[in-house]
């Protein structure tokens, strides 16, 4: 059942473009029915109305499991599991997904590739559902990478623009690399725990903690999660990813995909959490991201980057809360996750709508829009107030819970004071951003914009209005919207029953006071923002150049430069250069291997060489040397002939006269053949100049010296004597032959001989085919014959 829910998106994706072609005005609404159905289905399943698999009641609440085999040999199966955390995420993915399809139908109305966008969005939605429902680490990685790729396609949707392509690739490289980190960590976890099933990992918690690989697992896992959730210092890809069409940004980069990293952290908290390295790393990465994101958002004036950085800040807050890991902090994180999805989804869609209707992206140039787009104003303002943390919106509740989870008391360390301060600071900056984007453009006098502002179409209003009202309803009717999602989710993370308190009023306490401080500080900061920005901008922009994006650019540049240099240096097209590099590397390889094997030792003397052997050796070496240096083709052939006959002599010496005869025949034939062929070819010309020769000589000598020395060392070791008499004994009784080598060839090794004959056939046919394939150029051959006389 869960499997069907996940793959339904993949099934519908290829159909979407056709649907768009058939029903250009209705397709978006029809496609939106799928996520809606999924959301309803999930709701019914979790409420127990639909019996959808094995339901188990564990400490962490309910869970519904469905498993199908996939790659048994690797321990990877299609295991899906719906529990509280999965339900929260899946509801966000499918619910917001439905709104996004409707929104996209209005936003990109008439775009020629709208069908393609639906297809990519469906693919993304299905992959994201896979991520949050998978109960197998490898399966999770599969869907994780699919979200990266579908987001690549979505960011690069406007493919004609260079910037889109670059940002898409950047997002993919950063998150894809993180994905590989997850794969590595997953494999290690599987290796350590003996299972890839996520829900079973908890049982092996202590084994995992005690294992030597544990730090590596944590680091790689966090690397993967942090790249996906745009944590510092990998946050730079998210603002760039705003090159995507706004529906994509609203869906992927605010409420779903970027939360995948947070989801993974939450999912693995029961397994990896509790260890200092995990919690500390998460807390401080999250806190840094929170402040850096808020600060960067504070400096933006363009709508989408502003929202992107504030998303970065929110993601940091979530990661920090999960890092703190107490019951209160986790509950706060879950509520904040929901609240953020509601308000940020609204704001993104509003940004798209404003841009769409006014043609202006800079918030400082927008003013007085309330009159022309009243409905949008109400929705946006509600979301902005929620983001600023004002009652009675869910953002306020989330911020209260978050503060309560952090405020120092007897049980918490000194770090929590710092964390609280950082949260207050970033929240105050968040208030500025929320007001600047969500309220200010609608108030005041109307400023002229590129196009005449008017209320966006209904399809584009549905999403913001729905989400903004959910942000209110979550507080007004907590038992209806928020608690059924947030409670089980926190329980699943904590592995204990959790019930977040979502009431608005708790009396006057520290958290409330800090909330007031945040709002007052934010309001004050808003009042003096232009002055502040004027002072700090010159310094800050200089600091930007040292940011992590530079590291990314630098790495990319280095790789490409390396590639260019390597291509130029190594792939010159020159055969001789290839050979030179090849042999050089080979020599180093052999030398290295021998150096590891044993050191250099003495070389045996030349004492027991027999006289005729000296003659033979001299013959061979002279012949070989002559081939190497010959100025004349015939001389070279003669040199090779000399070597050949020398080898024949060696065969005789070693008691193989039959071999010697074969060798003699072949050598003679070879010399004759070559002389015949060369008759048709020109004389040598001196084609190397002196410097080339010198270089070649140097190369040759150094190569030769090293190689020769190495072979010497190899040669001095004594092989194990392995006398075999098998063939000698068996040759007469089995094969009725007395010439052992002949017997071996035709009887014992008949098949090898057959292979050898086949090689000969290949060569013969090859020569035939090559020679007859040449274009007829009679004049050349004629001219050549004259010339070579």
């Amino acid at each position, binding site marked *: 059942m869960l499997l069907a829910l996940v793959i339904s998106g993949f099934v519908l994706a290829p159909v979407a473009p056709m649907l768009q072609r058939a029903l250009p005005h209705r397709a978006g609404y029809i496609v939106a029915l799928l996520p809606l159905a999924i959301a309803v289905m999930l709701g019914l399943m979790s409420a127990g109305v639909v019996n959808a698999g094995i339901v188990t009641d564990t400490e962490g609440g309910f869970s519904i499991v469905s498993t199908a085999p996939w790659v048994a040999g690797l321990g990877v199966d299609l295991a899906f599991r719906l529990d509280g955390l999965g339900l929260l995420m899946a509801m966000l993915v499918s619910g917001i997904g439905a709104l996004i399809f409707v929104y996209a139908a209005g936003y990109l109305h008439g775009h020629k590739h709208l069908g393609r966008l639906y297809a990519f969005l469906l693919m993304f939605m299905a992959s994201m559902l896979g991520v949050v429902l998978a109960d197998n680490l490898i399966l999770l990685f599969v869907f994780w990478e699919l979200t990266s790729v579908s987001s690549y396609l979505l960011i690069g949707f406007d493919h004609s623009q260079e910037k889109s392509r670059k940002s898409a690739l950047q997002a993919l*490289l950063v998150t894809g690399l993180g994905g*590989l980190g997850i794969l590595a960590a997953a494999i290690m976890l599987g290796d350590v725990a003996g299972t890839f099933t996520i829900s079973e990992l908890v049982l092996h918690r202590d084994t995992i903690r005690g294992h030597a690989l544990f730090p590596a697992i944590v680091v790689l896992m966090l690397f993967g999660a942090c790249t996906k959730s745009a944590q510092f210092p990998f946050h730079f890809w998210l603002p760039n990813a705003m090159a995507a069409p706004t529906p994509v940004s609203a869906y992927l980069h605010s409420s779903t995909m970027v939360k995948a990293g947070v989801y993974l952290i939450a999912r693995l908290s029961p397994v990896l959490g509790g260890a200092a390295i995990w919690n500390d790393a998460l807390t401080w990465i999250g806190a840094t991201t929170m402040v850096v994101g808020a600060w960067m958002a504070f400096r933006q004036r363009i709508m989408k980057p502003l929202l992107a950085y504030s998303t970065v800040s929110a993601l940091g807050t979530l990661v920090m809360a999960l890092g703190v890991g107490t019951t209160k902090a986790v509950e706060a994180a879950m509520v904040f996750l929901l609240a953020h999805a509601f308000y940020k989804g609204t704001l993104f869609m509003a940004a798209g709508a404003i841009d769409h209707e006014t043609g202006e992206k800079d918030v400082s140039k927008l003013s007085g829009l309330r009159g022309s787009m009243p409905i949008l104003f109400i929705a946006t303002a509600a979301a902005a107030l929620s983001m600023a943390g004002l009652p009675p919106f869910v953002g306020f509740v989330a911020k209260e819970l978050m503060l309560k989870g952090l405020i120092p008391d007897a049980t918490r360390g000194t770090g929590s004071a710092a964390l609280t301060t950082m949260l207050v600071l970033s929240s105050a900056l968040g208030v500025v951003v929320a007001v600047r984007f969500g309220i200010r453009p609608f108030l005041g006098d109307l400023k002229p914009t590129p196009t005449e502002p008017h209320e966006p179409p209904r399809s584009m209003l549905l999403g913001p209005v729905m989400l903004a009202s959910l942000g209110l309803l979550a507080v007004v009717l907590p038992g209806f919207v928020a608690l059924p999602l947030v409670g089980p989710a926190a329980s699943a993370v904590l592995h204990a029953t959790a019930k977040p308190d979502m009431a608005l009023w708790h009396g006057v306490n520290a958290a409330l006071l800090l909330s007031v401080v945040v709002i007052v500080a934010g309001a004050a900061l808003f009042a003096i923002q232009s002055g502040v920005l004027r002072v700090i901008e010159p310094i800050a922009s200089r600091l930007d150049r040292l940011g992590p994006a530079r590291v990314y650019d630098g790495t990319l540049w280095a790789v490409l430069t390396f590639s260019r240099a390597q291509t130029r240096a190594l792939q010159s097209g020159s055969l001789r250069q290839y*050979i030179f590099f*090849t042999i050089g590397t080979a020599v180093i390889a052999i030398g290295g291997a021998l150096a590891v094997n044993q050191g250099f030792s003495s070389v045996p003397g030349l004492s027991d060489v027999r006289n005729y052997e000296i003659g033979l050796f001299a013959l061979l070496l002279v012949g070989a040397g002559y081939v190497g240096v010959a100025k004349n083709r015939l001389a070279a052939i003669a040199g090779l002939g000399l070597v050949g006959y020398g080898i024949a002599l060696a065969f005789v010496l070693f008691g193989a006269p039959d071999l010697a005869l074969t060798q003699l025949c072949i050598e003679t034939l070879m010399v004759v053949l070559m002389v015949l062929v060369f008759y048709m070819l020109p004389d040598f010309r001196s084609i190397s100049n002196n410097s080339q020769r010198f270089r070649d000589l140097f190369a040759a000598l150094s190569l030769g010296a090293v190689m020769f020395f190495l072979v010497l060392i190899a040669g001095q*070791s004594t092989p194990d004597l392995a006398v075999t008499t098998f063939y000698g004994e068996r040759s007469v009784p089995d094969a009725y032959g007395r*010439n052992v080598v002949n017997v071996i060839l035709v009887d014992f090794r008949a*098949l*090898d001989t057959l292979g050898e004959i086949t090689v000969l056939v*290949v060569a013969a*046919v090859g020569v035939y085919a090559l020679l007859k394939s040449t274009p007829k150029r009679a004049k050349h051959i004629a001219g050549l014959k004259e010339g070579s006389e």
Partner: protein
Amino acid sequence: MNNVIAQLWPEIALFVTTCLVMVVGLSKDRGTRKLCAPISAIGIIVAGYLAATTSVDTATTLPFMAKYGKVLAAGVGLLLLMLMAGTADRQLEDAVDRGEKFEPLRSTRAEFYAFFLFSLMGLMLCAGASDLIFLFLALELTSLPTYVMVALSTRRDRSMEAGVKYFFLGAMGAAMFLFGFALIYGATGSTALADVAYTIQNRAAGTGSIGPLALTGLVLSLLGVMFKIAAVPMHFYTADVYQGAASSVTAFLAFVPKCAGFFAIMLLVGCAGWAFGPDGYGSGTALPPELRILLWTIAVLTMTVGNVLALLQTSVKRILAYSSIAHSGYMLVGVIAGPGPAESTLASNGLAAVLFYLLTYGVMSVGTFSVVAALERRRRATAADAAIDEVDHIDELRGLWKRQPHLAAVMVICALGLLGLPPLLGFLGKLPLFTSALGAGEIVLVVILGLNSAIAAAYYLRLVSVPFLESGEPSTPDAVVPTPFPSRALAGVVAAVLVVVAGLAGGTLGSHAERAGTFRFPTKTMEATRHASQPTSTVSVPPDAAERGPNAR
């Protein structure tokens, strides 16, 4: 002997087919000559069937590799054959179509198909090789035909240049592994791989090292065989040769010699065995340290060089060539990881992972090359003239989605598969490499493998996005049109479907590779036992002097 012949039925079937093809292909009649391809197809299918039905246990450390390897060769061979349609005699046939007289003497169709089959046969022999001599012959049988195929594949100078580069570097590689084989024989006194493995590992168990002679032999022969798999430092030819040869032949080069090379590498490395640990032989599941360092360096260099060089290319064939280098590097990781602990599964057996990866790589590379092979450039200005050229520049694939959606889909699926995107076949192939290497404790290697996979994304995504997302006509003056050989596109479609279906179906193919990768520690073979039963120090009587004359028989 009968036992050995029983194992060779697939090769015999191919040999008979080759003879038939030669006879048919030399016919005076043009129509009869065209029977070459169907006959070859039938031959390959029969060979594949025979390979799948005969049970094989070669006397090597990898007894079950032969069967898997032969079926694999037949399967991918069939796809390659479909791709090969129309490669031989292209110009000649076009000339005849324009009304010129058919010149049987200028046709190389018979030879071309014969070479194809010979090379495939060599590959099968490699998989089943149990002896160094046999292996040497099988490797030569695999590569000699490919030299000629490259040189003959088109009538342009580039093919000739490619042929020359391929031949000379190949000859050097052959000389290297031959010298290596000689040293291995010298160190062990036998050429039977089982005996070689036993002697080497016996010595290692006794002295703690495999000995410098055997080591030099192994290193030299491995370096020589690296040529076949296009690994550093024998990779230089790859891009030039792949670009110069006709696309269909390039697809052949990317699979057949590589496969043969990996079979040979596994057999050779298997002689040294994966039984070394911190306390020498028998204390672990690693290669001897010298070989491990060598292969480790080669693997890292190979994947990095391949991926980095591929980044800047604009020629599709060069991109694929460099990526093929990188994939060799990935597979070497599996060789380094080794068979793992006893009773290992696909997840922990690196050799099984390599064998499985060969299958996945074969299918995916056929798919990508088929897209290039199924298209050609026709000069617009002179439509009457047969000015046909190969499609090569990546820009020529622009907007393919609009014009040939099936080819664009093949490119997208296969390139994403090569990238290792889950849940395609390529991911399933790469996963066991990761798991087995981690199981063997090669964490650094896994990290480098991961980084390389990320670099590779940059150029594979270009192969995906140019035909799929970028619209508009190619900016060349020539028209990019499909070739008149539908079987080429069909090969690609079949490959793409396999990449998706086999990826989703998951485990079934892997279980075959799992069995094929079973590693058996060498034991004394018959020859060795006989030898041991005699007093070893005395040398038995050789044949009488008079009987050893050349005419003794």
